[in-house]
């Protein structure tokens, strides 16, 4: 299995798109930090850019890559290799390659300019979000046979997580404005890893006061060690569950 990971990883790292993604991240990180006069402000701008770009690139690149390696998968399937190893190797290859790009592209500038707890939290959340979206892409590709449809599904999923979900939450908030929604809001964030990541970073920045009463509740819950552990656990679930479902599906798939 390590050997297959090695071949996949080498193939991805040779890919020009991954290189371009790394350079792009590097460019925006350095630009943002040199444009803003305070590091905190720079970090906030970078946060919004990263939460927008990272999921998009990860989910689309992973989807296309998996579809394009269908020949590779077929070739390996006629060899004495477990199906599970092939699928997990693909996941490990994609997740590690894209995490490495993120660490180089955004991790290095963040550590250089702002090596505080906030900066570290941002790098950690960025890596987790990278892996989560690889995992979601694997589920999307195994469910749809057609490449164009699969990429469409990937884009829809990205739209859902970055725009539609927030819209739904706002809608709920306005509809039920008369009720105390602060506690349920904490539960709702678990359904979107992007929101969870954003809240974790914002809380470290001490700007939670800007979020009003809900911010205070968030601070009370996520600010503690228990809250931090719980939210990282939820993010790990976001990695494992789609991966496990896709693995189960792949084990019974006809190729």
């Amino acid at each position, binding site marked *: 299995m390590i050997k297959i990971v090695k071949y996949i990883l080498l*193939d991805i790292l040779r890919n020009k798109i991954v290189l371009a993604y790394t350079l792009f991240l590097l460019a925006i990180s350095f630009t943002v930090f040199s444009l803003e006069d305070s590091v905190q402000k720079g970090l906030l701008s970078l946060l919004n850019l990263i939460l927008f770009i990272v999921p998009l690139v990860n989910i689309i690149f992973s989807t296309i890559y998996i579809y394009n390696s269908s020949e590779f998968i077929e070739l390996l399937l006629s060899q*004495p290799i*477990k199906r599970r190893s092939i699928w997990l190797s693909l996941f490990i290859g994609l997740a590690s390659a894209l995490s490495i790009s993120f660490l180089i592209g955004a991790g290095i500038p963040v550590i250089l300019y702002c090596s505080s707890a906030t900066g570290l939290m941002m790098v950690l959340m960025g890596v987790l979000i990278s892996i989560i979206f690889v995992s979601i892409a694997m589920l999307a590709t195994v469910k749809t046979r057609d490449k164009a449809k699969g990429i469409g599904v990937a884009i829809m999923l990205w739209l859902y997580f970055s725009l539609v979900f927030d819209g739904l939450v706002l809608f709920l908030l306005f509809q039920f404005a008369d009720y105390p929604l602060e506690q349920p809001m904490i539960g709702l964030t678990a359904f979107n890893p992007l929101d969870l990541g954003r809240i974790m970073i914002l809380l470290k920045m001490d700007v939670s006061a800007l979020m009003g009463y809900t911010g205070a509740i968030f601070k009370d819950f996520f600010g503690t060690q228990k809250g931090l552990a719980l939210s990282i656990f939820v993010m790990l679930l976001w990695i494992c569950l789609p991966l496990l479902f896709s693995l189960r599906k792949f084990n019974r798939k*006809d*190729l």
Partner: protein
Amino acid sequence: MIEAININKSFGKLQVLNDISFSSGVGECIALIGPNGCGKTTLIKCLLGMVVPDSGGFRFKGEDIAKGWAYRSLIGYMPQIGRYPENMKIGQVMDMLTDIRQKHDGLDEDLIGAFQLKKLYNKRMGTLSGGTMQKVSASIAFLFRPEVLILDEPTAGLDPIASEILKEKILVEKQNGKLFLITSHILSELDDLVSHIVYMQDGHIIFYKAIDALKTEVGETKLAKAVAHFMNNTTS
């Protein structure tokens, strides 16, 4: 050595394999023939574990293949249309497979030599012609000296010289007691190769017979005529 037990498979509404059962032993050279879309390739893919049957399954040396994967180290497979990672070179594909199979000694490089593939080792798979791709597939199938060889339309797309080389190789390995499973539409070229015939139609096995028995039964000496005779009799 290979046993099929009540295999059923349908893609949507289309029943591709319908209660397929047979068993074959060492040293047999089986021709799997039948009209297009009768389920030959699907049956082969079931044996390789690439297609999961709805019910029933294969046994390889008495072991259920659904649970295992190691049995595939004893199988060499040459697909009908070879599909390889396009940006890998021929040499890289060969190296990768030997690396994954962890078998570096005692490789059978006869076909690589006969097809003069070493000269093309730096060519990318995506740029190869259909015939060269078939040569690569054939070389890979024989490379690890497997006990069972599955060849799906082996000579389609090969030039006469190459297909002659491949046939010679099949004959040599047949003498070494390997089990062959060949699908083909060109019955005349199977004549001197195969020992048994499996005839499939609409997902059923119509007959599984030793070739000599078939020939004496219908009183023909040529395989093509014998099969045609049999088909006329079963349809009318």
